[in-house]
Every structure is written in C-alpha cells, then in structure tokens.
C-alpha cells in the first residue's frame, strides 16, 4: 500500500475527457515521476491531488485518508507540500520572512491571531528558518527581497519553504520548466540531495527526460488521460508504447 493511492480517478471538462480511470500508487520514500506528452492530463491529475479540482469519479487517498473535498490548506496540513511550475513565493517579503511563514504554518496551524507578539521574539521559528536557509545555501541572501532573486534561486527558496514543513509527500510540477541548463542541473542536484538525506516521498511531473531519468525510481506514463505503463526508468526508456505516445505511430 503506497502513501498516495489514486484509484479510478476521472475528470471531464465539458466534452473533453481530461482524465479517465487513472490508477496510481506512490510508494513511501521513493521518487515517482509522471510523464506524458502535452495534453496527457498531468496537470489535471496534480490539481486533483491537491484540492484545486475535484475529480468526477474515483478516490485519492493519502496515508489512508481521503483528500477529496478538502481545501488546499487542509491538504497541506496533512503533510503534502507543492512546488509550482513558476515559483510561487512571497515576492515583496524578505527571503527570511518567506522561510518563516511555512514554519509558522506548521507550528501554529491554519490560523493564529498572534497580533500582539513580535516576530523577533519567535526565536524557535527564526532559528529553524535560518537553518533551512543554510541547508539551501541561501543564508547570505536572507535579507534580500525575494522577488529580486534569479529564477533558480526562487525555485530553491520555494523548495526550501516546502521542506521546512517536513512534508511526507512533496509534489513537484515541472520544477525545471523554463530554466537555463545550469539552473536545471542545480535543481536536479538539490532534489537528489533531498531524496538521499530525508525520509520523503516525491511525486514529480516533468517534461524534461533528463530530469526524470536522473531522479525517478518509478515512472508512470500518461497519455490521453490514462496511464499507459508504469515501470522503472530503465524499462520505460525502451518501451515501444512510450515511444509511440511521444513520437507518433510511425516511429
């Protein structure tokens, strides 16, 4: 039984069957990649996992509990953090403040009216934020405005923000999309490090095969809203069905 169990999930947008009968099982402490050509339903599937969309059929269970019908912040509080295609950070806030917010959320829950205590007195949160920033090699940028950083650094910060909450499942939505080669390689190294050093399950949606084959333990290939095959990276590489889905029948 995996930590994330997707059973028979289907989603229809008007006349378009975006997802039909998706079954997926992500095992604990592995990196599971979901790949597929454009329009395969990768993003729809991800949105069903984190509460942005509610599937028409099927069930999504995280650690034995259903996530369907829960709001995004409730799903996060269950232990799922998400990294977006374009880094979603708090642009007007400093890097340190960016890092403190998820730590506050993990410590105090979804809402806390602590309007009369000062931020600088929250020593435990600041310490933890500084520690995570050091792990991310960003300690020297702590007072920078988050919006003024490079794309690669923003991505690094976002991943750090997710990790600071010590999630059990980290969802990555095309984490290297639109990045320069050097930034992509840095991100791959960072994710590899995370995978090796922490007890964390990673589910990743990605276009870039280089990223997928350097990280994934298992790969699910999605085509036209249904999983085509699920296997180890070695076997996926040479799978005729996968080539067909990506390159068309003539290949």
């Amino acid at each position, binding site marked *: 039984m995996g930590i994330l169990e997707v059973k028979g999930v289907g989603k229809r947008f008007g006349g378009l069957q975006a997802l039909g009968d998706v079954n997926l099982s992500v095992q604990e402490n592995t990196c599971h990649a979901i790949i597929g050509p454009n329009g395969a339903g990768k993003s729809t599937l991800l949105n069903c996992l*984190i509460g942005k969309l509610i599937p028409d059929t099927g069930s999504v269970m995280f650690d034995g509990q259903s996530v369907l019908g829960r709001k995004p912040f409730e799903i996060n509080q269950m232990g799922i953090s998400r990294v977006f295609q374009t880094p979603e950070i708090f642009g007007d806030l400093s890097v340190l403040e960016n890092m403190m*917010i998820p730590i506050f959320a993990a410590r105090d829950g*979804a809402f806390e009216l602590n309007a009369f205590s000062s931020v600088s007195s929250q020593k435990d949160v600041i310490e933890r934020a500084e520690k995570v920033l050091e792990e991310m090699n960003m300690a020297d940028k702590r007072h920078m405005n988050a919006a003024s950083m490079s794309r690669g650094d923003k991505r690094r910060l976002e991943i750090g923000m997710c990790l600071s909450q010590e999630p059990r499942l980290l969802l990555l939505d095309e984490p290297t999309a639109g990045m320069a080669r050097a930034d992509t390689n840095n991100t791959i190294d960072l994710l590899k490090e995370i995978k090796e050093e922490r007890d964390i399950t990673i589910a990743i949606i990605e276009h870039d095969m280089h990223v997928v084959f350097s990280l994934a333990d298992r790969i699910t290939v999605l085509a036209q809203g249904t999983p085509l095959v699920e296997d180890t990276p070695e076997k996926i590489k040479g799978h005729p069905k996968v080539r067909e889905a990506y390159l068309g029948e003539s290949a």
Partner: protein
Amino acid sequence: MFGLDKKDTSLLMIVAVLTMFAPFILNPFPTDSGLAQFNAGYPDLMQRFVIFGIFAIGFNILFGLTGYLSFGHAAFLGIGSYSAVWMFKLLSMNIIPAIILSVIVSGLFAVVIGYVSLRRSGIYFSILTLAFAQMCYNMAYSVLGNPASSYNLTNGETGLQLLLDDPRVLGVSATADGSIPVTNLFGLEMRGSETIEMGAWSFSFSAGYYVSAIIMLLSFYIAIRVFRSPFGMMLRAVKCNQNRMNFTGLSTRPYTLAAFVISGMYAGLAGGLMACMDPLAGAERMQWTASGEVVLMTILGGAGTLIGPVLGAGAIKYMENIFSKINDTVLHGWFSFLPDGLEDFVVFVIHPFVGKGWHLTLGLVFMAVVIFLPGGLVEGGQRIMNLIKRRKKSDDDAAETQPAAE
C-alpha cells in the same frame, strides 16, 4: 520598550512628543499677524487631526497590509458615532462606555460586512464594501431615521442629537440650569479648554484634544505591534501571494477577516470619539465621499507605512480647513502691493485653487504624489533624508581627500 524595537520606540516617541506639543507646533504665527490664518492649533481642528489619524491608521491595517481596498469604511465611522450618541442618551455622559460601545458595535458590523465582502477580492471587494456602506447610509438617512416610526435609531436628516428628556440612567437628563449635560471623562469636560497668552502668541489646550491624542497614541502603538507581529507578516503575505499561502497550509480568509474587523473597530473608535467631542451624529458621516477620503489619506501619506496614514490625515484635514478659508478678500490683501490690473489678474488665477476650490489643489497634490512618489509623503521624506545623507557623505569624503590633495 513596550515590546518594540529601538526604531519603532523612537518613532512612537516622536509621534508622542509631536501630539503632546501640537498646540505650540501648529501655532507658529503670532495671533495678530497676517499669517495667523495658517495656524492650525485650535482645538476643533487638532481633534480632527488625531481622530482622522485613528481612522486612517485602522484603514491602513487592512489596505496597507493585505491590499484589500475597502470603499466603505465610513460606514463604521458613522456606526461608531451613532452608538456613542445612544450611550450618551441612555446611560451617561461619560465617554468611556460610549467609546466601548462604538468599538463593539462597529466590530460586529465589520464581522458581517467583512464575511460577505471578503468572498471576493480586488475590484469586486471594493464594490461590495461600497454597496454595504451605501446601504448603511440610506438606512440611517431614511428607513431607520423616520421620527414618526418606532424604529427611529438615527433621526434621519436632522441627525441624532441629545435632548433634555433623554433618560441617562447613570446621569442627569438636564443640568441644574436646565441645559443638556456635556460629555466628560469622569468629570473632565471634553469641551473645556485653557488658553495661554505668550507675548503675541496664544495657545489653547483643550481637554478633548488631549483625550483624543492619548487614544490616538494608544491606537498607533497597537498598530505598530500588529505590523511587527507574525499576524502582520501573514497579512503582508496575503497581499503578495494568496495561492502560496493556501498551499503552505494557511487559511487566508480568517486572516483577512480579522484585519477587516480590526480596521472596522478602529473606524468605530474614531466615530465614537467624534461624537464624544461633539455629541451629534448625522448620516452624512457615512457617505461614500467620507470613505473615499480615508483612502486618499492613506495613499497620500503612504499605504503600508506606519506613520503615513497619520501624515495623510493631517495633510488633508489641514487643507480642508485652512486652504478653504483663503477667499478673494484675503488674496487681494496679499497681493495689494502689485499694480491694480496685475493684482486682479493674479487673484483671478489663484482663485480656483483656494477657498471653495481647495479640492482642486488637493486633487493636484494627490496626482503629483501618486505619480512621483508612489510611496506617499513618507517616501518623499525618505528621499530627502537620503539626499541629505548622501550630501553629508560626499562632504565628508571631500574633507578627507582635501589634505591628501595638498
């Protein structure tokens, strides 16, 4: 001090000193001089400075931190005033229960209006708050203000006033000489004032002003605490990126609602204080122009800064009261040294900008600030400080390099 860091403590101290010595600072010109009309140190206007300061400080907690632009905050101001006057009519002329009731009642209204309006953001939120405020205004003006009906809560057009036959359970309906008792703080009359003559100058110290000023300082202190708290940080995060907040396990709705209610209570406090200084409440206090005014104050001073709203409130109230008093007679007096034809021409040119036309000047100033100083007057101040610092630094550099050049 008071749980603030050094910088915030000194800011609070500066504001405290300025407000305490305002009767001197705002009266720089001798009473008989021609410039005496620029003196703003009379109790009525000083009270307005600090009360609208409170209003703007509260508005800034919502607009400056979360970015939600409410166009209906005057509703809370009016609700606060009506609550306070009712307390004077029914309970006693002491201002404490009146202020407490006005804060509570406006807070309750803010919960309801905020709960509905905050379902939308951006322009839709602004329109919803505007709609609520207009509803409140019209209810106060007509439906709940019909003297003939039994639901006469606001007394309509005339406004809610104190009467000789009000019950005032813990006080007297009428004083011994048959007049309406005055508002007080445990006996200290709000309208009482002391005038000191010092040479050509005269300074007036009013009890009402000092009570309002102390409450303003208290509100300012609370606002600093809110700004520096984790809660304040979350509100700034709401302004930045609600999506990230939701996916970080934070529920944005209670945060925005709390900010809305806090700022509504500030507005209620300001409205209540207004009624304490002058115990009558009219529906025009809730009109949309009054809501717009607090938006102008906050943006003019600098939204999201601590001191900005207070400066903005002061600037607008100063222009409203001082600029509007400059009429053609005054202008002719100023320019009488010019040849007749030229004098008339100069007065003709300046006329639209002063007196009843002060709104035109305000509009131009507002446009200039928004275009050239998006951070408001506070940004202007910062730029000047930076300029001075840079000049000082380059002077120092020059002084250091000179000996070497010899």
